[in-house]
């Protein structure tokens, strides 16, 4: 074969390989360095909070718990999930405070988190990462990200730049609206009497194959009590109180499904559904053990909200897939790092005995 025929053929082979490699690089996001990816999300958490090896990139301060969920069977009307069949399943979980600082002093105003795993037979699991906000301030992953960037403390003042935050709020009236609702919410005195919300809408599927939009929440059976200033001198006053409360008696919550109607928004966590929506009490969560992060199985668990059993499915809320992706990236990073002692140690937990 003459060179005049060989060269175009060689070029063709080169083009085929370049297209394949280019397509791979494009899919991997290497050609779009400004696109928001899970890795860039977690990088930004680290820029804002610093890197705290071994800890979650958000909700870094926490304490493990364990107990059980006793289903009353009422949920079966809407979901075929095994967790809703009458009976008990073991639960492990983790109470936390929002923010990436694992040793921050407890702040009653910080967002409180509760991650739970219901362990079901045959290797199924239901994980939910709940917070104490009835509505979420951000509609999209991008809005959450913008807020995260705007909340980065200015090195000079140690506080976020007010101009950046104002610019963010000007662009996001839905966030302003949610913040004004949240301001009117009373803050519960402790983790024990806090109501936790599932944050996003989901879909449940029953044995007839009917799909229903739902949200869920945990309503405390411990009496409501307004937050007081009494014990604030203790840096861990919320967690220490939780340890003491669980020692006295198991803590209980009702798990409640809010049944959505056609037309209720499922892809907007900033909007609450109408107050008259049916609420179904599907069972009782009992937490009777506290465990420091050093020993709790919840420490090395990713409370990915899309670990769902058959019978519960994601809604079209774009936050869900993004939460799953970013939690996973945060999990991968911290699991590869050497563990540091948590703020609440095993000794703190034993001391309360």
């Amino acid at each position: 074969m003459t060179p005049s025929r060989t060269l175009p053929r060689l070029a063709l082979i080169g083009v085929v390989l370049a297209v394949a490699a280019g397509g791979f690089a494009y899919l991997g996001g290497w050609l779009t360095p400004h696109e928001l990816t899970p890795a860039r999300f977690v990088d930004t958490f680290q820029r804002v909070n610093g890197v705290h090896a071994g800890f979650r990139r958000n909700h870094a301060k926490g304490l493990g718990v364990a107990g059980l969920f006793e289903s009353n069977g009422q949920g079966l009307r809407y979901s075929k999930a095994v967790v809703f069949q009458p009976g008990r399943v073991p639960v492990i979980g983790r109470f936390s405070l929002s923010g990436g600082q694992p040793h921050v002093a407890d702040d009653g105003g910080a967002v409180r988190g509760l991650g739970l795993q219901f362990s079901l037979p045959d290797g199924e699991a239901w994980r939910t990462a709940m917070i104490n906000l009835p509505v979420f301030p951000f509609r999209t992953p991008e809005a959450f990200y913008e807020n995260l960037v705007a909340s980065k403390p200015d090195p000079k003042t140690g506080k976020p730049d007010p101009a950046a935050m104002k610019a963010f709020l000007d662009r996001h009236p839905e966030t302003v609206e949610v913040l004004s609702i949240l301001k009117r919410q009373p803050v519960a005195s402790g983790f024990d009497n806090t109501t936790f919300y599932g944050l996003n809408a989901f879909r449940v599927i029953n044995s007839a194959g009917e799909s229903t939009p739902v949200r869920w929440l945990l309503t405390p059976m411990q009496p409501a009590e307004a937050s007081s200033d009494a014990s604030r001198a203790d840096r861990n006053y919320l967690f220490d109180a939780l340890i003491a409360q669980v020692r006295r008696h198991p803590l209980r919550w009702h798990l409640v499904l809010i049944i959505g109607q056609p037309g209720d928004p499922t892809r907007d966590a900033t909007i609450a559904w109408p107050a008259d929506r049916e609420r179904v009490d599907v069972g009782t969560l009992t937490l009777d053990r506290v465990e420091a992060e050093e020993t709790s199985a919840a420490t090395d668990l990713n409370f990915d909200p899309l670990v769902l059993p058959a019978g519960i499915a994601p809604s079209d809320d774009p936050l869900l897939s993004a939460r799953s992706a970013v939690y996973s990236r945060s999990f991968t990073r911290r699991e590869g790092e050497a563990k540091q002692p948590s703020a609440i140690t095993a000794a703190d937990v034993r001391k309360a005995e």
Partner: protein
Amino acid sequence: MPTPRAQFPLVSRLLHWTMAVMILSMLGIGVAMVASLADYHVLVSIHRPLGIAILILAAVRFVNRRFNPPPPFPATMSPLERRLATASELAMYGLMFLLPLVGWGMLSAARYPIVLYGSLHLPFILPHSPALYAALRRAHTMLAYLFFVTFLAHVGAILFHTLIVRDGMLKRMAPWSIRREW
């Protein structure tokens, strides 16, 4: 005069092309999902069962190779090329088994339920261990890159033989039967 030994047996050719599509999709899905927020969940939900399907087919293919051995290398391949081809084939067989097993193992070590479909789950094959998860997770990425590079080399070599050496190398694996010697 037809020489059936010049082409791979039909079952082998079908397995090759089915797996080629699956594996290439898998590598694309894998690299896309870790960079994606909006599509992460959908892609992961495909990635896991597809990985297990590849593992099963890799076993089928391995057994098939015993019963349907490949045709001899064409005379146009030098001894060095033969060694390289054998090595890359070995690498691809290894990766077909290793990548899904490492994926299964890392999810086991992290205690992620491994959903195939509905409530159908795989058992955990390793103990709950953060360090094991972190190491296998890293290995999963590295092995996937290695697989993609091996794939590029494989395609490049076949195209080189087919277009430049013009020995009809690609026909050995053509999905249709070729009834002549080349």
